[in-house]
């Protein structure tokens, strides 16, 4: 059931978007369409809703439409081709001249049509009726035209529950930089090579992936297991959007201990000497947010951000207890660090070498390490350092090609575009 406070994935054809359903007034924006989320409440996930135009405002970038959502049944979703019953098609394109005059409807006509009738199939039907060339096009060309129009006018959305699989697609498509360019194949291999699962204690350092890396690891650790994760980050507040979106049980969330890299290392090296409890009021930079009710906003890992200040204000009344909490988290992490970890995952924007040097001693022997970077040159250097040190064996630097395919009768081929960068992984096993 869709609940208030949930993160939801809104899907319109192949487009997906992560959205917080924060209040009954919440709206989501899909291109020019604004949709009210109100009617999602208490409906089951994976339901399909129809976008119904409520009003159209002319905005800066053309018409902005406000829609409400209506739950609809599966059989409203028939193929556009079936609906239109298109049959005649030309043998090839030899007689087609592209002079921009093929469509008799003007764009004003189409705008009007759009307001008047709610159904994309009807709009497309009109467009086809008024096209001078449609029936002389090849079947292939007709399909392409219909798909294009369907994409533009499609009026159904599906609401889905966020999973790692859906989120890595969304994040990577929307802004790969925000997840450090970690592609789906690379993420899947980080999980494999690190061996993260329902047993064990894991260590992660990441300098900002919108919470994707800790979420993926916690997801693989599972509910009601004994596995634990220490999640180190360089900023004031850990980025946790993906973690929150998963809506994991509390016990599972609490097994992810997010701590500031500097702060926890000082705690680990120096223990109580480092941070006398009386000093609580004066730790702005190393302050940690508590685990559960977190801001999904990630702070910039380099400079202390202005958001920090806002957070301080909002949590002002809980200041004392919050400060105790980050210290407790440091202590919990430090205890796990004493016992050492069953694997190390790193995804650093900084040069990985010094960080690895600090964290490698925290890993038990015969355990995997996985270091991600978008920059092969850095991993080359790190590879040589590790090779020389003799502390890690079975070293490999790998990257991937990911090819997706269009498989359709008589039209099978690899997709015409592919993403260029998988990033690189340096993997190995610690030795005693």
């Amino acid at each position, binding site marked *: 059931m869709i609940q208030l406070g949930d993160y939801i994935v809104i899907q319109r054809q192949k487009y997906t978007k992560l959205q917080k359903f924060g209040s009954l007034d919440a709206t989501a924006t899909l291109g020019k369409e604004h949709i009210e989320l109100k009617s999602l409440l208490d409906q089951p996930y994976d339901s399909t809703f129809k976008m119904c135009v409520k009003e159209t405002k002319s905005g800066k970038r053309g018409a902005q439409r406000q829609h409400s959502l209506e739950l609809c049944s599966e059989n409203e979703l028939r193929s556009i081709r079936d609906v239109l019953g298109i049959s005649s098609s030309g043998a*090839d*394109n*030899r007689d087609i*001249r592209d002079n921009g005059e093929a469509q008799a409807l003007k764009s004003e006509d189409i705008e009007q049509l759009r307001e008047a009738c709610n159904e994309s199939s009807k709009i497309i039907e009109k467009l086809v009726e008024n096209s001078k060339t449609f029936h002389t096009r090849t079947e292939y060309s007709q399909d392409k035209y219909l798909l294009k129009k369907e994409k533009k006018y499609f009026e159904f959305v599906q609401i889905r529950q966020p999973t790692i699989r859906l989120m890595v697609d969304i994040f990577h498509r929307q802004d*790969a930089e925000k997840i450090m360019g970690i592609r789906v194949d690379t993420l899947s291999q980080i999980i494999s090579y690190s061996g993260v699962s329902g047993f064990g204690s894991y260590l992660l350092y990441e300098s900002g992936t919108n919470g994707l890396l800790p979420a993926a690891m916690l997801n693989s650790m599972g509910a009601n297991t004994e596995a634990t994760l220490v999640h180190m980050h*360089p900023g004031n507040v850990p980025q946790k959007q993906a973690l929150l979106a998963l809506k994991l049980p509390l016990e599972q969330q609490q097994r992810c201990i997010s701590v500031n*890299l*500097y702060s926890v*290392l*000082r705690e680990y*090296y*120096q223990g109580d*000497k*480092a941070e006398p409890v009386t000093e609580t009021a*004066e730790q*702005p*930079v*190393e302050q940690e947010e508590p685990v559960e009710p977190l801001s999904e906003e990630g702070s910039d890992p*380099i400079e*202390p951000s202005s958001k920090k200040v806002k957070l301080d204000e909002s949590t002002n009344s809980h200041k004392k207890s919050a400060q105790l909490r980050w210290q407790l988290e440091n202590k919990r992490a430090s205890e796990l660090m004493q016992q050492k970890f069953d694997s190390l995952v790193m995804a650093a*924007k*900084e*040069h990985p*070498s*010094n*960080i690895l*040097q*600090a964290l490698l001693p925290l890993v038990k022997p015969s355990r995997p390490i996985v270091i991600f970077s*978008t*920059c*092969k*040159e*850095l991993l080359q250097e790190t590879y040589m350092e590790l090779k020389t040190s003799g502390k890690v064996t079975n070293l490999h630097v790998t990257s991937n090609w990911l*090819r*997706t395919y269009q498989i359709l009768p*008589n*039209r*099978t*081929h*690899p*997709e*015409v*575009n*592919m*993403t*260029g*960068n998988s990033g690189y992984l340096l993997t190995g096993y610690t030795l005693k």
Partner: protein
Amino acid sequence: MSFLKPKTHIEQGDVVILYLSVNSMHAIEAVPTIVNKKGETIAHIFQTPYGSLKVQNIIGVEYGSRVELSKGWAHVLQPNPELWTQTLPHRTQIIYTPDISMILHQLEVRPGAVVVESGTGSGSLSHYFLRALKPTGHLHTFDFHEARADQAREEFKQHGLGDFVTVYHRDVCNLGFTSALDGAADAVFLDLPAPDLAVPHAFKALKLSGGRFCSFSPCIEQSQRCIEMLTKLGFNEICSMEVLQQESVIKTRTLPIIDLEFLKEPKPADNGTNDENKTKEPKELKKYLTSSNPQVLPGHTGFLTFATLPPNIPKA
């Protein structure tokens, strides 16, 4: 006439590549005046994001020179098939240099070769064939689209290549390559939606002493049917491949290197919060010359199917 052979200076009538940047080049005709929509003869001014170019000024200039624009500058380059392919108006889907290079290599095109091509399309590939086979060979190129054939014919003439090419408006799948070409070709190239229909015609057009064949298809099913037909007609050395070129993006990246060793020591005596930040994250920066792929790579252009027609196969 700027496609015939290397030349040093821009002459009136040359096609010239106006090079602004890696992603911005334009093929322009070096003529001082043009006729506008109203039928008036006016000075030929070419507009760019860096201002306008008075085209008259580039006539007589040495290729490779820098030319001034009203708000910047550009370079003028002599056109060749690579630059032409990147600048030509996209009339149809075109094949790019990596595939084309493989086609020329596998078809063993060299000066003197007689090549049959269908379809002509934008004439992009034809320019490559012509460079490779001139001055002693000949290209026969076919398109079922009359306007395209006419346009290509006109263009080859204008580019100084007219002597080495014959352009046909003809449906080769149904009608073949004309009986005049029976047994005349060293190589046949097909870029057609149903290449298998034209394979028997290719078989006829190739020399009795044998020759090479290539078909370019976006979809695997086209290659499958093409190969079936090739096998049936006795072609051998049948081989399919894809060539995908990757560009390396080379740049200098500056990366922070952080130090964590200082955390092992107790903090120095309390000297105010302002200093905190500085001692907390000691960082140096280091420069790296790096290379990476662009965000989006060509994932597929087409399947290239090559085959050999062995010598002395009876064609009755």
